[in-house]
């Protein structure tokens, strides 16, 4: 398989105006991925599938990721002159990154027996802007998995042929795989609670009576 840089350059040439970033993975798996802009995602996907040397004809897995709002602190050593003496001072800058949702596609080529190629798309935000183009017209196998992402993460896939909930019932309004999902309070019977479960189970405990007669017992 070609390197990610080569695939990125080819795709950017083929789909005019497409902007592709490489999301590096420095972990042991070394599986870096391509971040594709939403406007050209379908064109890029079509290129990846149809190009004779790439031929990614099999979409094995589609999944979602929820990224909450976060602040990243960066500490940089800056040389400052204080009272005529040059010193190294730590300067901390905070960067606020707004949250977004992500869809991750794992692509393989049956023809050339290579892969996986991992491509990602990001939504504008986690509320009404949680929209992405559907890649079901390119890979049919993405249909059910995009429905699952819609169900559990709440990403709306535009031009998806049949975007309904798949695991939860239709009347359900939440998206349970989002990190800020809070499940309904049915913690009335927890025999071995701990951590978060203990906190929620405590609200159902009957309070211990303050006076139970034991305080009147004295040693003879």
């Amino acid at each position: 398989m070609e390197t990610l840089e080569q695939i990125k350059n080819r795709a950017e040439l083929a789909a005019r105006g497409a902007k592709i970033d490489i999301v590096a993975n420095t972990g042991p798996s070394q599986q870096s991925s391509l971040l594709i802009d939403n406007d050209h995602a379908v064109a890029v996907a079509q290129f990846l599938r149809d190009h004779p040397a790439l031929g990614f004809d099999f979409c094995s897995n589609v999944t979602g990721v929820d990224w909450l709002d976060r602040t990243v602190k960066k500490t940089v050593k800056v040389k400052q002159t204080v009272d005529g003496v040059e010193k190294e001072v730590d300067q901390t800058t905070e960067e606020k990154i707004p949250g977004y949702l992500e869809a991750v596609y794992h692509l393989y080529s049956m023809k050339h027996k290579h892969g996986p190629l991992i491509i990602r798309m990001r939504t504008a935000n986690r509320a009404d802007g949680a929209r992405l183009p559907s890649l079901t017209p390119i890979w049919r196998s993405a249909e059910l998995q995009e429905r699952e992402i819609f169900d559990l993460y709440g990403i709306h896939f535009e031009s998806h042929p049949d975007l309904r909930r798949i695991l939860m019932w239709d009347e359900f309004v939440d998206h349970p795989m989002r990190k800020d999902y809070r499940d309904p309070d049915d913690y009335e019977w927890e025999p071995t609670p701990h951590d978060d479960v203990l906190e929620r189970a405590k609200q159902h405990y009957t309070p211990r009576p303050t006076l139970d007669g034991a305080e009147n017992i004295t040693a003879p």
Partner: protein
Amino acid sequence: MGEIDEGLRSELQRQGVWVTSMQELYNWGRKNSIWPLQFGLACCAIEMIATAASRYDIARFGGEVFRPSPRQADLMIVAGTVTKKMAPQIVRLYNQMPDPKYVISMGACAISGGPFKQGYNVLKGIDRYIPVDVYIPGCPPRPEALLHAFMELQRKIDSQKLSGADKAGFLKPEQPSEFPVPAFGEHDLQPPANPDVYHPPKLERV
């Protein structure tokens, strides 16, 4: 068999006279011909199938006639994870079974939600909506455990009274044999538990 003396009874039996009561005969017949409802929800169902197959052979206890229709079944074996999406269908099946009917809650999931208890989509025990007669813990319980539960249920049937104030529940007209089917709500099933059926122990802790 409250009236006749046990010693007299065995003495009569030695002379070739067998004395029994209507209740004993009736329960003996019922407990040795329990027809389970044929349905499975998860991996516990595989163990239930193994119990019905030749090696463990639930036929030895008279329970081999798995019925595909709730109208013909006496016993519901809730074998596996009950998701919140499936729970209304389970209650509906239970309601369609004729009295007398019994429920075995098989495995950790059917008892309490098991390993999925803190998940978002699994019901925390089928006893929130329907009364359960025998619980079998295990993940999944072995066929021996299901047979044990089956024998426990037979013991329970054998001890049920047909008359008097403490007669079996299914003979009391005021005892409900159907329970409301929960509806799909926006965040959870509505209601999340049937308060007439589900009585969790009150916890008193500090």
